[in-house]
């Protein structure tokens, strides 16, 4: 399922660099306030089909809030989110069919076994029994979870829970994947494996939007990136445009670290006594 029409994708890839593909995710004027602070303060974002889009930002910048609103899990105070032209908030059913979601810090139905959770996610998305079975097996194989399918998800490690949740988000073959911290607590080998799966998905015409703290990972994997600080996008574009001459890490620290200075803490220097 994942490597559907690889030949066509291979042809499409160079084109994607030349002329912009259609916009898959269009976020405009998105705004959300918690109490007195604006967690997301009027964000506009366009993600094109077949792109691998990274969202980075310091802790508390509003990444999770932004992605939750984009997936229809958190109602925005203002602004619109469109997926393939379908408004997520006025026509949620059609839009949600197109999106695969991996939320951060939300529970799973973890008293199910891995196999049951995949089956549940697939069936809730309206897939038939045979399709679900086939895709579950393939996904488990691809994510290296086959041996763990008979165990309760509550007994999984944090990394395995991420993987099973990611597998569940793919099962209905969405056009757009929105992943909040997909690599958190995933070991390096599995992260490499996840990246391969996601690259395949993109090569097949899918689109990935993900948030991460791993700048190296984003720089290596994504083609575009947006840096969010205090609920606003302060830079965006292709990786090369954003990072300029340095690494993404350096550019990120330069932009996001502007208001964080290591002043004070002088007592740390005299820590020998």
């Amino acid at each position, binding site marked *: 399922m994942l490597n559907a029409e690889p030949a066509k994708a291979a042809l499409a890839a160079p084109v994607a660099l030349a002329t912009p593909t259609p916009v898959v995710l269009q976020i405009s004027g998105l705004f959300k306030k918690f109490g007195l602070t604006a967690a997301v303060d009027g964000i506009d974002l366009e993600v094109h089909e077949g792109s691998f889009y990274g969202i980075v930002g310091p802790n508390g910048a509003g990444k999770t809030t932004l992605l939750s609103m984009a997936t*229809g899990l958190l109602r925005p105070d203002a602004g619109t989110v469109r997926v393939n032209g379908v408004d997520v908030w006025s026509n*949620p059913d059609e839009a949600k069919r197109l999106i695969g979601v991996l939320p951060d810090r939300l*529970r799973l139905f*973890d*008293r199910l076994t891995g196999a*049951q959770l995949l089956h*549940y996610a697939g*069936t*809730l998305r309206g897939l038939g029994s045979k399709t679900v079975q086939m895709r579950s097996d393939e996904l488990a194989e691809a994510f290296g979870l086959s041996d763990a399918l008979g165990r309760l998800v509550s007994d999984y490690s944090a990394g395995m829970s991420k993987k099973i949740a990611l597998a569940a988000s793919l099962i209905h073959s969405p056009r757009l994947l929105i992943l909040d911290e997909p690599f958190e607590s995933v070991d390096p080998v599995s992260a490499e494996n996840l990246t391969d799966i996601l690259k395949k998905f993109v090569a097949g015409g899918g689109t990935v939007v993900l948030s991460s703290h791993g700048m190296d990972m984003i720089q290596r994997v994504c083609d575009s990136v947006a840096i969010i600080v205090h609920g606003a996008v302060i830079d965006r574009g292709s990786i090369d445009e954003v990072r300029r001459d340095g690494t993404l890490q350096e550019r990120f620290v330069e932009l996001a670290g502007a208001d964080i200075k290591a002043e004070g803490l002088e007592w740390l220097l005299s820590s020998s006594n």
Partner: protein
Amino acid sequence: MVAELLKLKLSVLGNSLVRVRRGNLGVVLTFLFCLTLAGATGAALIGLRTAASEVVRTDVIIGGSLVIAAFLLLPLVLGVTDHLDPRRFDLFGIPAKSLALWLAIAALLSVPVILLVVVCLLTLITFSATTSTLFLALVSAILVVSTCVLGSRIAFLLAGLFLATPRSRETGGILGATGLLILSPLVVFWVSQNWGQGGSEVLDRAAAVLSWTPLGAAWAIPADTAVGVASGIIVAKFLVAAATPCLLFVAWRALVVFANSSLERRPLVVIDGRLGWFRRLPATRTGAVAARSLTYWARDARYPVPLVGVFIFLFVAYVSFIVVGVPLTVLILLTVPALCITLAFSVHNDLALDNTAVWLHVSAGRLGMPDRVGRMAPILGIGIPLIAIGSVVSAYFVGNYSALPALLGVSTCLLLAGLGVGNVLSVAFPYPAVRPGDSPFAQPQAAAGSGFMVQATFILVTFILAAPSIVFAVLGLLGNLGLLWTSLWWGAGIGLVTVVAGTALGGAIFDRRGPELLAAALRN
């Protein structure tokens, strides 16, 4: 090393006293409970000094057997932390056989054992009439204390070894609480018997049997002597009583060796490679939610436990009603309807039990109706057979089959209307519930009390909807037989309409307020 262990145990004991001083409610209550128990027993034992020796014999043997049984059984079910678990000391490299002995000695310094020693010393007063009984009471006390200490050590370790997973621990705790509650009327009955004035013949016979078992043999030594039983029999009972702690010690030592040699054994729990309910039910959205609910009812104690709690409450209420003198027929007729509304009650906040996992339902889009319908599966799966079988059984016991339609009507109405009302309340007014993975007895972290209004609304609205059926049923039972059928039609009609309307409304609310429901779960 024994001294070190005793010191350790002493500081554990001291620390729990600190918790008493700080007013830790659980510890204080346990402490008061133990003190009251020991005080009452002590007073009874001193009072027995002047009683007829046959009476003393019965009371001491039965009471004493209960004490030893408690030491053997309570560690299995209470689920308390055992500070003297031999596995905790494995890293110190003490030979397992010495460790077994030392731990048994250190176990003397625990609140229950100290209270036991006090009680045993009080039996010396009971048997202080002659020197020989006094001496035998002392022997008996030593045997009893060693039996209790070793027995409870073994029970603790067995519980730790084989009931150790959190899930079975919960189950054990529930079973224990249930057992205690069901036993409590018995204990009350026994305590309310006239102490020292000769119980029934049943008790005398029970004591005679128990005196040959490890539970009662030790107590029987001075008690039988006081009565004047043949010395051969007393020697035989002494052998039983003395062999018990010896065998227990051998078993304890073997168990310690086993426990510390099998420490690394922690097998991965493989539930099942197959899909269980997901395979058995149709692979539709509704079917999937139903399969998930059924799986959770079987695997997650938070679902069945409140129900078990209510069943126990009903049982206790019935016992007290019977004591007060409410006719049994009324109680039998009330049973099935009471269980039905209890079952329906469990949907009124079902969404909150998912906690934030409900995002999966929100992100699936337009899942309202399947969600509402699917979650009723376990309730209907229990409720429908309950109504069908329970009503017939009730009618049989009352000896009045003409009451059957009314029973069916009221029960059906309470179950279905309750489900309808609950389906709306659950999505309209979710309130914090016990989190996944927490003990079903734990309190939710968020502000308490928010659930009270929802619960009250559920009960009030459900009873208003069931009122016609109930009124016709009562009138019918009072003599107007035609109304019994009227009760059925009204009950089934209102029930069906409510469940359909409530489910549809609940589903619509879910679709509209999905993100808000997730936000509410995030606040929990």
